[in-house]
């Protein structure tokens, strides 16, 4: 299964009728981005050493990328990470999960930013520059 399949599930969940659906949708959208980002980094030769470091490992490689689109990917990943923590660990207050709008927007933003990885990979020159930059920044 490709991790982006989680985004299909997020789309279904966000159409669901309850707060639990909307919270779960944010989590699936976040993991679609995180795991696709990790898979891309692996293909490019960068592997997180420990599982518990994966979230920061992936986020920072993209946040600090020289490529502006990858920085945007990193920012969306960071934002969804914060929203996902709220969704999973703060069920006592409805917060942004009072209705489906914020979760729906999170899923849409994930849909828009995920293809940035494909776009970079489809351009060998751009990809080579990205890999060289990450290698330089994280020797």
């Amino acid at each position, binding site marked *: 299964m490709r991790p982006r399949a989680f985004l299909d599930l997020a789309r279904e969940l966000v159409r669901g009728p309850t707060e639990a659906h909307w919270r779960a949708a944010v989590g699936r959208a976040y993991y679609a981005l995180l795991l696709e980002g990790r898979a891309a980094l692996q293909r490019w030769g960068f592997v997180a050493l420990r599982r518990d470091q994966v979230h*920061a490992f992936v986020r*920072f490689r993209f*946040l*600090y*990328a020289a490529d*502006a689109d990858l*920085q*945007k990917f990193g*920012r*969306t990943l*960071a*934002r969804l990470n*914060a*929203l996902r923590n709220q969704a999973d660990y703060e069920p006592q207050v409805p917060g*942004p999960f*009072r*209705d489906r*709008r*914020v979760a*729906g*927007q999170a899923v*849409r*933003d994930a849909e*828009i930013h995920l293809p940035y990885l494909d776009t970079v990979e489809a351009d060998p020159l751009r990809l080579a520059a990205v890999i060289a930059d990450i290698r330089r920044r994280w020797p």
Partner: protein
Amino acid sequence: MTTAANIPVLITADAEQRLQELGMRTELDAMLEYTKKTVPGLRAIEVRPYFEQDGTMLIITAYKDPPDTEDDPAQRNWDSWAVQAFPPEVHRWFLFEVDYRESNAAESIP
């Protein structure tokens, strides 16, 4: 009618402290100014800390009216601007989010 000049801004005490540690007051001011000028239907702004393993970030929440359309590009537009306006060493500490709830930020400002 609310204008950019009188949009209430609440920066929590914890956020103020973190801002001083980061030494990024000028950058936050620019972010608040941009938010006031560009986010349609903006009612209030709140800045609060977000505790992360890798260092406490600041979340800028824009309380705004819901958009007329299904998609609200406010967050994407803000992120695109931030990536152009600041290096990663700065923008990594700030998250921007929108919230369609009412805010009591106006009443909380001393």
